Structure formats: C-alpha cells, structure tokens
C-alpha cells in the first residue's frame, strides 16, 4: 500500500481559533492550543503526527491560514 504523509502549516498569528478545522479533520490531527497569539485567540496547532494531507481543514478555514502538503510514496512492487 502506498504510504501517505501529510503536513499542515498554520499561520498561527492570523488564526482566530474558530475550531472549524479541528472538527473537519478526520484524523484528529489538530487541537486548540492553551496559549494565545497576538490577536488574543487560542490558535489551532498540530497535536499528532498522523496528517494525511486531505486538506479538509484548509477548505473550511475561513481565514485561509492553512497550507497543506501531501506526499505519496508508492510501495515497491513485490515479486509474486
């Protein structure tokens, strides 16, 4: 099976902590931080390293602060 690695980069200073991305994430990768940014909002952070790069979080993010990368490594074919 192909191995999928994803990565999200969140612009934390622009995040408003609406939590929509956290609900949209099927892998529960994202969580809300306990500290605040310069705007005074508790921002969203990556809590686990299991992102698949589905980009659901970036789609629902109203402030367009999320950038998503997805790398698919194809498994080498095994001899039968």
């Amino acid at each position: 099976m192909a191995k999928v690695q994803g990565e999200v980069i969140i612009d934390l200073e622009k995040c408003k902590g609406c939590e929509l991305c956290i609900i949209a994430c099927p892998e529960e990768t994202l969580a809300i931080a306990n500290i605040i940014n310069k705007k005074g909002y508790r921002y969203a952070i990556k809590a686990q390293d299991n992102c698949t790069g589905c980009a659901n979080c970036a789609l629902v993010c109203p402030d367009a602060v999320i950038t998503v990368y997805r790398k698919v490594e194809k498994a080498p074919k095994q001899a039968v």
Partner: protein
Amino acid sequence: MSELNEIMNPIKENICLPEFLVYERPDTLTEQEFHYCPGCGHSTVHKLLMEVVSEMGIVGDTIGVAPVGCSVFAYHYLGVDMQQAAHGRACAVATGIKRVMPEKIVFTYQGDGDLAAIGTAETVHAANRGENLLVIFINNGIYGMTSGQMAPTSLEGMVTTTSPYGRDVLTQGYPLKISELLAHLPGVYYVTRQAVNTAGNVRKTKKALQRGLEYQKKNLGFCLVEVVSNCPSNLKMTPLESNEFVANQMIPFYPLGDIKVPEVK
C-alpha cells in the same frame, strides 16, 4: 514568518516542497487579514471565489461589486477590480458596468440585508431583464453588521434583537426564499443554493461558483448562487454551534441543491 510560527511550525523539509503542495491561500486574496468574526462564512466564500477566479485565470477580466453589510470591505480582500454600491443597489451598478464593458465578467457579492431587504427591487428587475451577472447571495438569516436584527430571511420563531419573542409570521411575515422566487423568471439562467458549514458543502459551493463564472464568461444570463451561512456573533453561539444551527435549522428550511439548471442542448 513571525517568531511564534517559527517555534510552533517546524518545517519538515522532505514533505514541505512545492511539488507536494495540495492547498495554499489563493494568490488573488490580498495580504490583508479578514475583519470578520472567527468562523464567519463570509471569509470562506471570499476565499472560494478567489480560488475559482485564480484557477480560471480571469483575474484581469473580473469586476466585483461590493455591498453594504458585513462584507462592505470586500474590496480590501478580493484581489480583483471592485466597485462599491449604495445599500442594496449592487445589481443596478453591476448592470451599468456590464453594459459598458460586456466582455468583462461581473459579479455582485451581497448579504441578505442588502439583497433580500433594501435591494429586492433592483435584484428582481435585474433578474427579470436577464442581465449577465453572477449574484453571490450570502444568507445567514440575520442582520450581521447592525448587531443581529431580524432579516427577511430569519426563520419562523427565530429570536433576534427586534423579535425577542421569536419571529411571528402573523405580524412579521414569512421567511423569504429569494432563490425560489427568482428561479421562476425567464431571464434567470442558473440558480443554486449551497452552504459552507462542512468540508463537503464547501467543495460543492466552489463548484457552484465555478459554474456561475463559466456561464458569465459565455454571457448566458443571470446566475444566482445562494450560500447558506452562519453568524456566530449575532446568533450568540460559538462557531461550531452556529454551524450546527445551519445544519439543523436553516438547511431544512432552505434545502441545498440546484434550483434552476440550464437545459443541456
């Protein structure tokens, strides 16, 4: 990148490469931060619209008309040519722009206070004349900018600052379904209603906006894309609760889907 971002976002050099990029902020959105409340549907629609404009490569040919309401500063965020209209008159201004420059793609971006209340006459007559406009109608069932008064689209029994006992249809009338109203007119080419409360609905809204702009490119007629949206601040809810309100209360009354689609020849 600020200091906070550098500490909290360690960049994985093997994944964060341009060839693996799936999603980034569209370059047609300006660098200005949105003034909207956290979780507001307006900013999602701004973002989707600019993604579509960017993907279709029509940045230089698109002219938008901004309304009065929460999205009054849309021209600060949308990286296309914009014109501000008087309250409710966006369709009238857009008609003028389109008639002078018929080769341009013209859209108006209006809320329910602008389009469904003060601007009903302009909207209905622009639709009836079959003007080649794309009208993006954000329906959140409340007046956002003026702090939560009852809108024509407020649901029956909905508590707002001007209907503290809930909207009573005997004195305040029934919620206005603009999309169904306009779909009957022969000049109207395409009418659809979408929402932005879940990732799936966001994808569908993007497709609807793309379709609307494609039709405008070919000058086929009046297109209306209604987006059922939330208003966390004035519904006195968190963004997540307001999206649940959209899913449980608003979408049953304002069913999603295409209302008028052109006949395929």
